């Protein structure tokens, strides 16, 4: 497991691929001039605003890295993401790696559970890759990665992200996988666990992460949450994403975006 690099790069990234993966979900592959091994799961890139009237950069989690490029998973929610979803072979201004990466230093778990809600699945794709590779290398029979991926409906799910044998789906409307909220699936699964040591990483709506964090705390399961707030700079200077946490003020972009769940004061998040 690598540590976050100190140096940040700004570059003109070429959109190498742009594929629609589900309703409103696109996988965008962007060229990268430096060694992509510098990216750690949980880190993100900032993309300069694309819309004429925008002045704030947009943060996007790294979902996968390739030899000289990386991919982000985006959901079209406004003008900038709409524009990004339509770009092919164009250049965009990108900077990163932003934020601190993988916080899991204690690898003595039997299973790593990655729980993603909606587009919150994006950073967990990278976590899955890194930890699955690690498990294979170790061949210890420990450290299995299980993914729980929930969305509102089948049409919102991206089925290209995980090998079929490592992921369990849920949909709110019951059109695919376990019917109901991802948190219900999580509760059902964790209640079956007796002696295994689990570590959880979750990303999605705050209400979902909050519930997962509460259950983890109750069961003494280490839980990391990947947070988001509107950011202007993505680099820790504007303080737009600062929130009060148990140990003081933290910038989601610079001190996070991955935090131990017990650090978070959920009522401080919007």
């Amino acid at each position, binding site marked *: 497991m690598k540590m976050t690099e100190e140096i940040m790069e700004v570059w003109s990234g070429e959109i190498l691929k742009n594929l629609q993966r589900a309703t409103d979900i696109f996988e965008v592959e962007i060229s990268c001039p430096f060694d992509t091994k510098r990216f750690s799961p949980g880190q993100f890139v900032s993309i300069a605003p694309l819309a004429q009237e925008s*002045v*704030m950069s947009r943060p996007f989690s790294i979902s996968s890295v390739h030899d000289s490029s990386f991919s982000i998973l985006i959901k079209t929610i406004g003008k900038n993401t709409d524009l990004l979803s339509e770009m092919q072979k164009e250049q965009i201004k990108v900077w990163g790696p932003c934020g601190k990466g993988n916080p899991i230093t204690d690898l003595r778990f039997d299973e790593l559970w990655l729980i993603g809600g909606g587009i919150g699945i994006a950073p967990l794709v990278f976590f899955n890759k890194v930890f699955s590779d690690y498990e294979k290398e170790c061949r210890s029979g420990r450290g299995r990665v299980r993914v729980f991926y929930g969305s509102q409906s089948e049409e919102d799910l991206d089925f290209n992200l995980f090998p079929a044998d490592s992921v369990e789906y849920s949909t709110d409307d019951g059109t695919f996988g376990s019917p109901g909220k991802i948190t219900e699936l999580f509760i059902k699964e964790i209640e079956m666990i007796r002696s295994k040591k689990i570590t959880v990483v979750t990303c999605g709506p705050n209400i979902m992460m909050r519930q997962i964090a509460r259950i983890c705390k109750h069961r003494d399961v280490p839980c990391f949450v990947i947070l988001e707030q509107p950011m202007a700079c993505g*680099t820790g*200077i504007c303080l737009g994403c600062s929130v009060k946490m148990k140990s003081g003020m933290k910038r989601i972009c610079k001190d996070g975006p991955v935090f131990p769940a017990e650090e978070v004061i959920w009522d401080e998040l919007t």
Partner: protein
Amino acid sequence: MALQNPIMPASGTFGFGEEVAAFAGMDLSRLGAMVGKTATLEPRDGNPQPRICECEGGMVNSIGLEGKGIDYILEYNVPFMASFGVPIIFNISGFSLNDFALLAQKANSVKAISAIEGNISCPNVEGGKIPFGSTAKAASEVTTVICEVTDLPVIIKLTPNVEPKSMIGEIASAVEEAGADAISMINTVKRQNIGGIPFCGLSGPPIKPIALELIKIVLEQISIPVIGMGGISCLEDVLEFLQLGCSAVAIGTANFSNPLIMMEIINGLEKYCQDNQIYDLTQLRGIVE
């Protein structure tokens, strides 16, 4: 205070330089000056979320002067800034005249600091209460207390949130008379109830015309230098402010959408000056209109 060029960051868009310095291609030693985030007497958490939102082609913020307090800043942040060898403009803000006096006193004792910038205009604190900068009398008083305790050059940062607009000239004159060495303007433009934020300040391109209009009024009334800011996002904007008569300019919100914008502007300005045989920025003045 001599600057190697007229480009500096606006307070609050630069932190204290650490994060900015981490960018490959960013050379802080090439800036005209460094301007830190506002220092307050005590550590402050600032405002709750939400704090920022895009609107009107710019953005509003309501950070609420989050910071670790002046003692921490002087001990840990200023030495880092000082390592680049460019003037440090130390931005302070208080909630009383006494606060300002204490802050200026503390800053005055630190050798690395080249000038004090009094932020008398932050509209986002204390529920949007009227800042010192909104009347000539209060602005004059706060300038006086800062000047009394420091030998450093004193810059007073003015708020554009004054009524009527012409009042800005009176405020600037009062500040000059009270002993300020320069004026910086403008801070953000007051807005209310944007994106769930009750009181906030607008920055970015939409405030540029407001900045230019108010700076023009001020320049007609005072003889001390003006550091211009408000929506500057490219070399053309910089030239517009310099041609109007500003002695230097600050880049603010534009730093968020391009971390290397200050380097690009400095390069652009150098080239512009070489191409046009400009050896002194006063040569630029009076070209507009």
